[in-house]
């Protein structure tokens, strides 16, 4: 299974390098893009682990939503000029590096010295069972909606709370008086707003691209 080894080596090296880039580059945008690279390669490792569903969800949620949200915020706040300032916490870096190295040493030591998993520890989902169920998505669904129903529901409530909280936080209280005018009235009249636009003006001429 050399192909797996090749793939894993590639994925792990790129993920680590991109992770390093994430915390070292100057611009937050570059940092976020490096994180996307990490996300993709971790997703690749999920595929290697035989969990395609998790890989897809990882890309959809992390790359498609969270990091995009970061980039969106960066563009909204227009952080460009900060790139010229000092980026590292000067006083703390001399404490941070040893602590991080120490943490890595400890965790890595645990990771490497971890004994092999004995058969009696194994759960109810060996690869062939997952295949019989139709794939990792179906396998996950069977536990998600039975054993883990409560955590699942709690997570959904958490998302709802976060969505509402984000809306409340990000709303500009000063603009509230400006938010109601004509738009809202038009919305009430009908969501298909295109018909009440003046015609002619906006209809495009062909081949505007070419």
């Amino acid at each position: 299974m050399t192909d797996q080894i090749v793939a894993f080596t590639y994925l792990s090296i790129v993920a680590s390098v991109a992770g390093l880039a994430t915390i070292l580059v100057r611009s937050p945008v570059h940092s976020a893009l490096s994180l996307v690279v990490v996300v993709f390669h971790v997703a690749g490792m999920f595929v290697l682990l035989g969990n395609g569903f998790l890989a897809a969800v990882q890309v959809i949620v992390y790359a498609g939503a969270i990091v995009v949200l970061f980039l969106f915020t960066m563009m909204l706040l227009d952080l460009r000029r900060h790139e010229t300032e000092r980026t590292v916490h000067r006083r703390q870096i001399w404490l941070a590096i040893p602590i991080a190295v120490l943490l890595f040493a400890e965790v890595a030591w645990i990771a490497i010295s971890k004994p092999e998993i004995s058969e009696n520890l194994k759960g109810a989902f060996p690869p062939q069972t997952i295949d019989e169920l139709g794939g990792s998505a179906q396998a996950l669904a069977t536990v998600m909606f039975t054993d883990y129903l409560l955590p699942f529901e709690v997570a959904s409530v958490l998302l709802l709370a976060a969505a509402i909280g984000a809306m409340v936080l990000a709303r500009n209280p000063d603009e509230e008086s400006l938010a109601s005018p004509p738009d809202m009235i038009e919305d009430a009249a009908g969501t298909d707003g295109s018909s009440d636009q003046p015609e002619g003006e906006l209809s495009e001429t062909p081949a505007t691209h070419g």
Partner: protein
Amino acid sequence: MTDFPWLIPLFPLVAFAINGAFGPRYLKKATGVIGSAGILGAFAATVALWIGGVHSDTPDFTLYRWVSSGSFSIDIGFVLDPLTVVMLLVVTGVSFLVHVYSIGYMAHDESFARFFTWLPLFVFAMIMLVLSNNFLSLYVFWELVGVCSYLLIGFWHQRKSAADAAVKAFLVNRIGDFGFAIGIILIFWNFGSLNYGDVFASVSDKSPDLMLLIALLLFIGAVGKSAQFPLHIWLPDAMEGPTPVSALIHAATMVTAGVYMVARMRPIFEVSNEALLVVGGIGAFTALFAASIGLAQTDIKRVLAYSTVSQLGLMFLALGAGAYTVAIFHLATHAFFKALLFLGSGSVIHAMQNQQEMSEYGGLWRRMKWTYFTFLLGGLALSGVFPLAGFWSKDELLASAFFKGVASDGSWAFTVFWIMGLLASLLTAVYTFRMIILTFHGKPRNAELHSHSHESPISMVAPLVVLAAGAVALGGAVGFPPEHGFIHDYLYKVPGVFHFAGAGEITAVISLAIISTAVAAFGIVAAYAVYSRRQPSPEAVAALSPRVYGLLYRKYYVDEIVNYGIVGVTKGIGLILWAIDAKIVDGIVNLIGWTVRATSSLTRRVQTGQVQNYLFLIAAGAVVSVGAFVIFR
């Protein structure tokens, strides 16, 4: 047969959803039709269920499993026995008529759509309450009807009195529901299940004292919901809601939930005689007490409200006597004629431009013949005149109390209750005809209002006629011959319902019937003598005995007692506690606070406000704990 009952609650729910979602913006007046159609659908499904017949051997029907946790599970399920069917027929039938009536009554209201949103929701909740086969869903829908009641009493929330009445109804009900909830918790604690079947099956294994406690707690819930003394104070105030609401919720259906609940829980109540005694005693006392208050009220809807309280008391009397079929029978007939009376009064109020004081009425019968005749029939039925509906049920009801007291084990208490019930019937006849005479007879006392009065539109009159037909014929049709009428035989199919003691002694029944008819006739004659022969003004009657009249007019000062007694004492205790709290407890707290402040002003130096300092400490903590794991594992 048991595959369509879920349609019954579905229709009103769909009507509620449609009206709630689209009513205010798009449907507007169409909501009335949609609401009525939804209830009609439920009624039709109920009739189908009735005709299809219910199997008393397998009354449970599980819709789906709602909560499943270990060995404990709660199903959304239906209990489909004759008791349910009778209740459903009453609920959906009367609801449908009230809905139709409301289309006319609420026609000019701005919040028409809102009205027809809450009303189907109420019907849905009531149907589910009746259908529930376990205590939890019973409780959920018990509360939901309470919420609907709150919303509808406060329907005209712009009026302070309506908003206050809604809050009062909610708070008073809360006291009852609290007892109810504790009762259910006790049941779950002791039985480990909330299904009726499981609980009833093992009632005999538990200690009688425990069952008495549970029964009393459940009964507190019934007292609150069915407005029995001393929790009756919310119902008269609830008349602030629109009249159709009063007719449907506060006369015909929701307030009877307590009666239904006690009837449903009969295995629990029957374990101890004390519980039955309390039920009957509260019922008898409330019946007499509320009827006497009804004598002196001048607001037409309040008279009817106290009448409802009184009649519910009679039902509880029957329940206490163990005559469940009779209680349900009276519940059904009462639903018809009391809804009729309320809707009739609504018609009058509608005609008199929302004036509810009977002192402004008089001589209306010429102008509102339909309303008058139907109202008269309702009044006769309420008074228990042969052969209207009220006669059959009330007669049996009193007979059941009599037999319980005299014929069976000679329990003197029920003899007293029987006499109280008889007195209440007498007073019922008096106040009913006082109301009819003051409203429809004599000279108009407010000429201007009188000149503007008119008969109500067809959509309001038609339900009156249908209800009047029910009030006339229902009792005889289903309740004749006494003890062996259709409804009795039907309800006897419910497992565990038995003929009450004395069943079959037809001569005794007839003699009691004659007594009660005579009482009713005496009451009517008395009312006629006082109010019609003399100058028919309430003041003149009041002057006969100002003290008694004042006492009755002020409703025995129950509201005041509650206000100054309970609320005032609570406030007084609160004041004393506050003083203790402010001087002593706060002193200690302030001392502690000062100490903490002094120490923290030193230690707060650690809080730099630099997030990363904190994060660094977290990371260091992680390093230490992981390190400990690595070293010591």
